[in-house]
């Protein structure tokens, strides 16, 4: 779908839950059969709408977790205990349920393989979801665009897509995945053990601030990282950001 095109009306559509994947104790990936889905670009999101029996409607945005090349549309949802939507999606939804959503939405936080790189991806918590879509897109297209993912999590148990990321990392000499565990580290942990700071960014980013950076996560995380990247020489236009707030639930 070309960016230049006049977009059709954004309409609500129904998908059927085809598969549920437990990513961490709090995070689930929902794979949907969506017959009316027109395709998307890595980094875009969908809006999900839940309607209660009394007519009350709650709407939330979720980043698309799948690559455009994947067979099924996927979103990854973190359960927020006081959330209105995520507890239902992460706990009550079962295979065969219908889900109302619309999309694809957004164009700013998007990466297409033809844009090239190198690609620096920095994710905090479930901010890794759109970055994962970009990495899957990159792998599916078979490009050797250099890419680095710096992923900040509370603990190893909170790392979403851990096996997949490690597999992509070891299978691809042009991709490097680094973790920062901020609260709890396993014994012998060789990754970073603190919040992402300018020193970590300097060690992880490409020399001479080459390429494009995508930063996604909670607002404070995104602003710290984006400021840090500018601090080590990235031009603001090279850094694309997506913030999500605590009301995401």
């Amino acid at each position: 779908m070309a960016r230049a095109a006049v977009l059709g009306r954004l309409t609500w559509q129904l998908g059927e839950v085809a598969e549920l994947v437990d990513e961490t104790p709090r995070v689930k990936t929902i794979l949907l059969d969506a017959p009316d889905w027109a395709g998307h670009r890595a980094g875009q999101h969908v809006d999900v709408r839940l309607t209660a029996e009394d007519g009350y409607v709650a709407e939330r945005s979720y980043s698309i977790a799948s690559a455009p090349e994947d067979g099924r549309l996927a979103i990854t949802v973190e359960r927020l205990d006081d959330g209105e939507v995520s507890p239902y999606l992460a706990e009550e939804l079962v295979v065969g349920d219908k889900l109302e959503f619309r999309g694809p939405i957004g164009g700013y936080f998007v990466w297409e393989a033809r844009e090239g790189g190198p690609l620096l991806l920095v994710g905090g918590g479930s901010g890794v979801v759109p970055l994962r879509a970009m990495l899957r897109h990159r792998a599916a297209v078979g490009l050797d665009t250099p890419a680095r993912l710096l992923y900040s999590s509370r603990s190893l148990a909170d790392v979403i897509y851990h096996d997949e990321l490690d597999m992509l990392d070891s299978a691809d000499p042009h991709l490097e995945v680094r973790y920062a565990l901020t609260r709890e580290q396993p014994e012998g942990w060789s990754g970073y053990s603190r919040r992402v700071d300018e020193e970590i960014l300097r060690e992880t980013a490409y020399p001479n601030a080459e390429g494009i950076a995508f930063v996604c996560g909670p607002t404070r995380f995104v602003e710290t990282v984006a400021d840090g990247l500018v601090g080590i020489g990235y031009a603001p236009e090279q850094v694309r950001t997506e913030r999500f707030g605590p009301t995401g639930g």
Partner: protein
Amino acid sequence: MEEQDLKLDGNSAAGLLRELFTFELTTARGRCENCGAVAEVGAVMVYANAPGSVFRCPQCESVLMRIVSNGGRYWLDARGISWLEIRA
């Protein structure tokens, strides 16, 4: 909750903007009427905790645009934007 926690960005308003515009507006560039800064709409600040969405300049924080919707009607106030460059 602190004010900082309520700050989102233009990406979060992409669905709302798609209800109103046939072009992708998050990749449009706009100029702040107050300070002259130019930014893509996806990169500006958005506060959605008000009864509507308030778009603010990432440089000077002045209000660029406000959108309130209710019952199939939209109010759009874009007095803080000098111009928008939309990729058509």
